[in-house]
């Protein structure tokens, strides 16, 4: 790629850019579900903690991180819009009311921690605490339904596979949240969370099996994809990662458990992408190759992403290094 004029006609370095952007879009989605997933999980676990001090520690744990985590959703929307605009348009307008449910949940979830800390009286904190829990449960639930509908090509909101996937995503965020909180807390709270983690993991495995089973039963067109080697490998990887998560949690190997939780999220998104490819939208039947933007725009976007995404990882490394380790006594949101 030495001739700038070739940018308009030749893919950069001859790479399969359409497939790479398909992968990138799902990678960004997985980053969002993993990073903001533990924020959602912390929000769900907030409901299980009555003690004010413990609740403050939960909020303090995600305080510096969640803004950055949530941006991955914005980048997901932007990347899908930029690389596959017709898919973005069709997918979002088709799920009109569901998108607004997701947005509503995210608004409530996003406001709640900030508002919770604005006034330190019981009534105010009780209501914003509830909003935090409700937003943290409904956002991943609706997102799960959205993802399931995307894969199956369903346009209505309520299908059995979609409901099961929604619940599975909620359970996964709790698994994720436990893994994160065990890095960020000490003492009794950290020990108590272990049980929550086992329960959420069990629920997740049951729901994933139920989701795959219901997709198999209800969507004959997806059966061969479901039984393809990459998807089966990811299902097996899910089981292995679940085992690793449980063992690491038992042995108090916090970083291993956190890594396993990340692996579970990436495996789930990988299954979704595997079921979809080479289509990128079952409802319209558009393939990745047909839906991609022009070569010139794709080349420019690829240069942009190749420069910017590594920088983003530097920012996250700075942030997570600055706030590594458990919350110190007295440290609050």
């Amino acid at each position, binding site marked *: 790629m030495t001739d700038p004029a070739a940018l*308009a006609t030749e893919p950069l370095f001859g790479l399969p850019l359409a497939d790479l952007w398909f992968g990138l879009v799902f990678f960004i989605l997985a980053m969002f579900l993993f990073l903001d997933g533990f924020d959602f999980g912390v929000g769900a676990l907030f409901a299980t903690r009555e003690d004010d001090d413990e609740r403050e520690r939960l909020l303090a744990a995600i*305080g*510096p*991180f969640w*803004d*950055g985590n*949530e*941006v991955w*959703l*914005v*980048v997901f*929307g*932007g*990347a899908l*819009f*930029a*690389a596959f*605009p*017709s898919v*973005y*348009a*069709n997918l*979002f*307008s*088709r799920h*009109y*009311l569901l*998108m*607004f449910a997701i947005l509503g949940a*995210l*608004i409530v979830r*996003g*406001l709640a921690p*900030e*508002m919770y*800390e*604005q*006034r330190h009286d019981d009534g105010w904190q009780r209501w914003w605490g509830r909003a935090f829990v409700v937003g943290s449960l409904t956002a991943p639930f609706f997102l799960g339904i959205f993802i399931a509908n995307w894969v199956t090509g369903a346009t209505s909101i309520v299908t059995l596979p979609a409901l099961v996937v929604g619940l599975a995503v909620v359970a996964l965020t709790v698994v994720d949240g436990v893994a994160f909180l065990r890095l960020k807390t000490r003492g009794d709270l950290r020990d108590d969370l272990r049980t929550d983690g086992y329960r959420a993991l069990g629920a997740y495995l049951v729901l994933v099996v139920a989701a795959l089973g219901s997709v198999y039963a209800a969507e004959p067109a997806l059966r061969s994809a479901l039984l393809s080697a990459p998807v089966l490998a990811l299902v097996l990887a899910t089981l292995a990662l679940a085992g690793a998560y449980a063992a690491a949690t038992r042995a108090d190997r916090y970083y291993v458990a956190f890594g396993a939780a990340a692996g579970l999220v990436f495996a789930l998104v990988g299954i979704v992408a595997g079921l979809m490819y080479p289509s990128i939208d079952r409802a319209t039947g*558009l393939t990745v190759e047909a839906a991609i*933007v*022009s070569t*010139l*725009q794709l080349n*420019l*976007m690829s240069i*942009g*992403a190749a420069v*910017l*995404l590594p920088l*983003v990882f530097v*920012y*996250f490394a*700075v*942030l997570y290094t*600055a*706030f590594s380790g458990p919350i110190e006594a*007295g*440290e*609050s*949101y």
Partner: protein
Amino acid sequence: MIDPVLGSRLQFALTTIVHIIFPVMSMGLAPFLVYFTWKDIRTGEPIYEQLRRFWTRIFAVSFVVGTVTGIVLEFEFGTNFAAFSTTAGELFGGPLALEGMMAFMLEATFLGVFVFGRERVGNALYMVSAVAVGLGTWLSAVWILIANSWMQTPRGYELTTANGHTIVELVDPVAAYANPRFPWMFVHMQNAAVESVALFMAGVGAYFVFRHHVWEYPVENVAFWEATLKFGLVALLVTAPLQVLHGDLYARHIVETQPQKFAAMEAVWETDSYVPEYIVAFPTSLDQLLDPRAKEIFGIGIPGGASWLASGGDPQATIKGLEEFDGKQPPVAIVFWSFRMMVGLGFWFVLLAVWGGYRWWSGELLEDDLLHKALMLSTPLGIIAVELGWIVTEVGRQPWVIQDVLRTTDGVSPGLTAGEATATLVGFAVVYLGLLALYTYVVVRIVRAGPPDGDDLATRDTPERPASEVSVDD
């Protein structure tokens, strides 16, 4: 049940009008926060730590509310304007994706360090985080305005067909993204943001200075409020005259690139020369009150003023009238009045700046109660001027969503039903007005609580001090 096209337009207008308040606060506060952080680190004077911490609280709340309202805007292109997204996505989606990756990521990650990290990171990294947050907010505007300016003056594209849809295809990235409108919009927007925050700071500062010095009702931390007033005034002295001068040149650029919008701004129906600049204009007959074509009007105008403005100095110049353009006109009355009110406010801000600057220079800044009252009343007016400016920009471009390429009515999602449009319009009206009320309530609360007090500052180096910057009651 509302028509899906009208519903989508109203919904987008409502969500944009509410959303824009929060990025304006963030973008306007950013240079102040960088300066306060720099002075805090370099001098260690408590006043700068107070300024930094106090305005960081307002910034953090603005950022959170701006984020949750902004995600909605991004998604609305897909949900409500799917036809636009399909047609223009190739050019329009790229800047949005780059905004997320380049700007929003930078701002959001370093905001965590900036808000929570004063005790955790060294001075150098803390300063870097302040600059990164500020840079992130401004880069966001770069990408959003690149996208928007392309819709105003589209360049560098060709119409082609893909999957059965007519779409714009990028052919000349420099023409498309280094768009002639972009520098005008960016300077006008960023200056407006700083000006709005300057007015906000001056107004809030004036309130406490007024209570303390004029009413002689003792106010804690009065030095903090005096400093706030002065910082606001300094910024206003820089930004207010610049905005008027720049706005005048910007209007001439609109004459050249979007003559239909300019005709709507001046309500010129028939092509004419020596066109007056009306300050006010009312139909003399009540029957014609709602008729935008009313001819019998009572107006106070400067003869040849609009021609002079459009041409840059020639009162005899010809202005192309609205009737010369194919297709529908924008809602002229909205554009005409929004433009007038924006310009009027712009001059009022210059007057305030000069007035405040003069009193400061003559040593009477703390005693001029009329000035304090004027500043207090003007606290939200910068934001209102920004809103009016955006109404001129966006409504003035109608009926086009992409000037001369795609009509707004053709950009709406084809499958959208009246029921869906109505449900979400009502839902967003409730939620967004609630958000605005909540934001106002929280900001007022933060202002009333005032800066962190001296005792709090004295304990800044002890480990017991909470790391919080955003909690009011700590």
